[in-house]
């Protein structure tokens, strides 16, 4: 049994759980069940769900925000200022949502079964010029942010600009944008950190949600032994991913902030509350729109908020 797995870019922290999963599954089955992980060779990243639906490959990674209409239910996890603080919390809320029948039904349209998430840190922003630490400071700020996150910044008076990620460095260099919102590993690899003088350490405006899915027929066609090997490896793979991200990327991030003397902007609780209030309309609108499509949107949203409150001990 050999599965083709479609991911994109280069091997990096963001794909380490897939690599680990392949390794574990192969070990557990004595090399009978292997995975051939292809970085962009099998599909374009925004077409991975299509490939799964066709049956061209058996496993794939994608990000919900790339194409909201393909996966309206999962985008609940990309709403702004949900209050996710770290990767463990991101994993917990994601997997809870993936287990919901409405979400599974949504993905079943693509003949896809959700296997696990690829937890991404919050898209905190790096910026040039004077640090901005209040809602008022965001007025007129040109920020590179796409999709829902862009909407969130628009809600607080900023001007979101769509620049492709590989042009983000130049866009900052030429003041096309003042700030860029990325996860830390992307700030590092697209070198936006090299331009930055400040970073919002705790703004936590939101993130993208990028699940790993498998083709249902392929999954059901596995022998019991192979399926068991796959299922039982998920938790370990995720754990490996989170460890790796924290011990490598985030540690390197802290070092670079220090080396380059980048100001860490910490927002006060009142300021954060103002951000939440200013962007609540986006969540409300999401709920309204998705409910109209017959999705239990309110329920999904409430589940996420309740889970986070529980984890924050509130």
């Amino acid at each position, binding site marked *: 049994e050999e599965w*083709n797995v479609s991911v994109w870019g*280069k091997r990096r922290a963001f794909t380490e759980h897939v690599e680990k999963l392949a390794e574990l599954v192969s070990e557990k089955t004595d090399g009978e069940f292997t995975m*051939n992980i*292809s970085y*962009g*060779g*099998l*599909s*374009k990243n*925004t*077409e991975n769900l*299509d*490939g799964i639906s*066709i*049956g*061209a490959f058996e496993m794939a990674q994608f990000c919900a925000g790339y194409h909201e209409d393909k996966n309206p239910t999962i985008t609940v996890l990309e709403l702004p200022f949900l209050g996710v603080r770290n990767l463990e919390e991101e994993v917990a809320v994601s997997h809870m949502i993936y287990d919901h029948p409405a979400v599974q039904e949504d993905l079943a349209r693509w003949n896809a079964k959700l296997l696990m998430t690829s937890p991404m840190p919050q898209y905190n922003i790096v910026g040039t010029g004077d640090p901005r630490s209040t809602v008022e400071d965001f007025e007129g700020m040109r920020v590179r942010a796409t999709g829902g996150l862009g909407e969130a910044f628009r809600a607080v008076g900023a001007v979101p600009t769509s*620049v*492709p990620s*590989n*042009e983000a*460095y*130049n*866009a900052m*260099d*030429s*003041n*096309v944008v003042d700030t860029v919102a990325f996860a830390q590993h992307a700030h590092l690899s697209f070198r936006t950190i090299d331009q930055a003088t400040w970073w919002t350490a705790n703004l936590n405006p939101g993130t993208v949600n990028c699940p790993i899915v498998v083709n249902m027929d392929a999954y059901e066609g596995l022998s019991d032994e192979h399926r068991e090997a796959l299922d039982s490896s998920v938790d370990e793979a995720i754990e490996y991913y989170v460890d790796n991200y924290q011990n490598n990327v985030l540690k390197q991030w802290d070092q670079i902030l220090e080396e380059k003397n980048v100001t860490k902007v910490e927002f006060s609780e009142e300021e954060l509350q103002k951000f939440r209030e200013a962007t609540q309309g986006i969540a409300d609108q999401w709920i309204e729109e998705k409910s109209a499509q017959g999705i239990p949107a309110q329920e999904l949203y409430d589940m996420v908020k309740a889970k986070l409150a529980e984890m924050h001990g509130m």
Partner: protein
Amino acid sequence: MTSIEIGLWVSGGLLVLVLLGMRVAFAAGTAGLVGLIWIFWEKKDYAWDEFSWALGVAVKTAGQVPHSKIASQELSLIPVFILIGYMAYYAGLTKALFDAAKKWLGWLPGGMAVSTVFATAGFSAVSGASVATSAVFARIAIPEMLKLGYDKRFAAGVVAAGGTLASLIPPSAILVIYAIIVEQDVGKLLLAGFIPGVFSAVVYGGLIVGLALTMPKFGPPIRGFTWGERLRSLGPAFPIFFVVLIIISFIYNPFGDPLGTPTEGGALGAALIFAMALIKGMSWSQLKDALLETAKLATMIFTIIWGVLIYVRFLGFANLPRAFSDWIQGLEQSPMVTLIMILLAYAVLGMFMDAIGMLLLTLPVVYPAVMALNGGDLVSAADSTFGMSGPMCAIWFGILVVKMAEFCLITPPIGLNCFVVAGVRPELSVQDVFRGVTPFFVADALTIAGLVAFPGIVLWLPSLA
């Protein structure tokens, strides 16, 4: 049969289809589709009742490629870069440039041919496509050279070779394609092409002067222009410099002030020349003509892109790129020898493929191997094999490969520039043009050797940005 074997068989089949005269885009698409069907059916051990499944999956996988690969922002630079060239023609810039070049350089031995080379170099600064540049100059420069008694084949060769400058001097469609395939910064690559482009033009010019000095009845110098006439000739060509300034500014952003991205710079330059053409009285039928020509050339390029990408998608399933990279790294010879062999392989391949098809077809396989040879994507200059950092190696190799690809635009049997020149000039056959362009092979070989030996020619400008 292993998937790599299937990959090799299908690649051989592709070569046969191309040799049989099937259009390159559709030959590649057919090979890719057949390969996909083969790969998926092989997965089911060639069971008859699974053939329709394999066919369906393969067709749907291939059917994604045209839309999904073409709908990209970076590729949008290509039609804009082509349009800008056609608009410059209608704005009268081509003639103005040619006139200025003639007045300033005509006194040299082989003066009209040298002028043509430098006029194409100037025009290259507003034209993104070699083919379009050759087409435009075939219309204005060849008749003038023929009037002076140049050999018609050589005159055609000058224009076909001069056109290749358009792909090095920014804006350049093919550098955009390279940047997209290897995921490198478009702006820096465009910038890096500038000096090698000018360098190539100087080598061409030197070659022509040398030929004119050694061969009798080559073509007379044109003398007798006053300095006043020379200075006045710069006026009409001036907008070129302005547009160059815009495009370079957007690529380079030298003022540290907000300007924009290369995409926007190209479009802005095109808009300016468009406005000029309108002011010069371009009629609707001329505009329609320019738009149709742009659409046709862009469509042709895009068709090759998606056709070849269906084949590349198949290669992805066959896992051929990884096998190749492992093989290259396992070679027991010096990396520089390997690099030179790769460049030579491009020269051979270019005899069978057109430039864009060749780059699209090979880079997914060759680029990772070359980067690995240098020591990886992020290697520092000190630790590297070729003495340059990873990103700089990507730029250097890009310029080398694009120069090779341009070289192939003038090599038989499918040197596109030569076809275009022959297509525009009724008095010339393709064979005539290929014969006339032969001396420029030598010039290009010298240029490429220079760029390999002195990477600074390529890397100096982008290292400033």
